[in-house]
């Protein structure tokens, strides 16, 4: 692997991913510490909504004032970034980057199945993002905020959300198999 290390720090040798159970144990300990120290779990989709609210507030403050949902986060003297989930969001971006950096996985590429073009994959990604975040806001949390955090605190509603996520994905998998298989 020495030949790959010569160019720049961005060409570190690519390391293998950790074993799923090890990754899970580490993630579980982080989740526990988050709850233990702050009483809050992990999450990220709330930050997406808050960044949206900040943009809307900057572009058209009067629109925020007419939207009760956005008013919960922005408008008046409220700062949409004044929530724990915002630093978690930016921390996670930087954490993902750091792991990619140290493990030699920083690379511009598109991860996709073999039978789909890059452009179609990008379109599907974008659509998936639209659909996922719409659902995440409706369910008041995504895989992190509901399934992971709510799962660990044994919230009944979060377990229902988790099962619904898996059900929705398994039910749709057959129809989008060309993306992946």
């Amino acid at each position, binding site marked *: 692997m020495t030949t790959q290390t010569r160019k720049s720090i961005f060409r570190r040798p690519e390391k293998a991913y950790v074993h799923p*159970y090890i990754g899970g144990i580490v993630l579980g300990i982080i989740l526990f510490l988050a709850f*233990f120290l702050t009483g809050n779990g992990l999450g990220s989709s709330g930050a997406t909504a808050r960044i949206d609210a900040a943009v809307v507030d900057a572009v058209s403050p009067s629109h925020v004032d007419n939207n009760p949902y956005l008013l919960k986060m922005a408008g008046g003297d409220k700062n949409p970034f004044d929530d724990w989930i915002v630093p978690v969001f930016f921390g996670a971006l930087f954490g*993902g980057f750091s792991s990619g950096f140290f493990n030699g996985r920083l690379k511009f590429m598109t*991860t996709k199945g073999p039978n789909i073009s890059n452009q179609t994959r990008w379109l599907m990604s974008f659509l998936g993002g639209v659909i996922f*975040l719409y*659902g995440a806001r409706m369910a008041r949390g995504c895989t992190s*905020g509901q399934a992971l955090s709510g799962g660990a605190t044994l919230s*009944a509603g979060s377990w229902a959300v988790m099962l619904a996520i898996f059900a929705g994905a398994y039910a749709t998998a057959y129809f989008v198999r060309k993306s992946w298989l």
Partner: protein
Amino acid sequence: MNFPLPSLVAVSAANPWTYVLFAVIGFAFGYTLEMSGFGDSRKLAAQFYFTEMTVLKVMFTAIVVAMVLLFGAAGLGILDFSQVWVNPTYLASGILGGLIMGVGFIVGGFCPTTSLASASTGKIDGMFFMLGGFVGAYLFGETEQYFTNWYNNAGYYGRLTLDQVFHLPIGAVVVLVILMALFMFWGAEQLERIFGKKDLSKEPKLRPVGAAILVAMGLAVFFIGSPSLESKYNKVKFTRTESVPQLNGDPVVNTIVYTADEMLANRLVFITPAEAFKAKYNQSMNPVYLDVRSEADYNLYHIEGSVNVPLDRINEVIPVLLTEPPANSVFIVMSNDEAAAVKAWKILVGSSIQNSYILEGGVNNWIAFFGKDDKTLRPNPNAGEDQLGYLFPAALGSRYDSCSPNPQEYETLEFEAKIILQLKRDKSGGGCG
């Protein structure tokens, strides 16, 4: 020390370290997701074609590890579980939203946080997913008004945990979830062998050891059990300031920390009928009048707007009191005199419900204060301890004049204010919400 630390439950500009702490938590989160392979959409999507079950393995390992540590710490009394954010249950919007998320998951190949790990390592599809996410969250904000009633009410159960659903001790649920997870891991490996053509002999040999440790920890949580209400009650501390006037110069302000029993002994939690009444017109607080008497007494006479929760059923409403109320709720418990109200107060305090107070002298004192001119109410000389001290011509509930005193008539009332509003974090900010 009592965990979670009250100074860390929310970010605040007054304490910039909170931003750093949450950023560090987020960093560790993103780092772990990337190193587990969640930056690659193929690894995530493979879950739904049974070829690679990494998503399920990582997710459920994390859930059971965090769960066993959480309930272990809560059982040992280090962690106050009532101060831990538990996602409130909204069954209808949760299930529909979950199904929609599932579709987004397999169409897009990511979930929100994994798209961060992906985008930050240069994966273009991850970036598109993130972008789409901003659009999706925006669309929800724009359309929520069309179904806001459904969104906020359908299948709402408040803070509901699985032990309450199945009527099991929390430790038993912990053990069952661990066993279920282990069974799922076994099943996932079989699926990987069949659909993914994976050679299981190359898997780490220590897996059964890890499984055994998990089960042992789960059993430990089961046998530790939950801390009793009494032990939680005894740990609650109240901070009050007291200013001592000085002969020359400014008064000295002392901060005193009281236990709950000392608060009772010093009568710092007993508020006069005047203060309880005036709380209704105080913009800074949202008083909730909890009437813990029997339904019969409540029907005879109760304060306008009070909620009847007989003492023996108070445990049923605690989950609701913990989740829903706005941060500035003040709970004012009352019985005919004080005995039952004190018992109820102890349960509320032991359950970490903040801003709980007792109506001094109870409903009898309220009538003596506001209803002294009402000739239809005659004192009952035979009333025993904590019984209604009046005889009523009819069970009019809250339709006596004194049940809702006229705010203009009682515009000025002198009282020594005992309520000190303790603001907890706004619960709506928790979780992903």
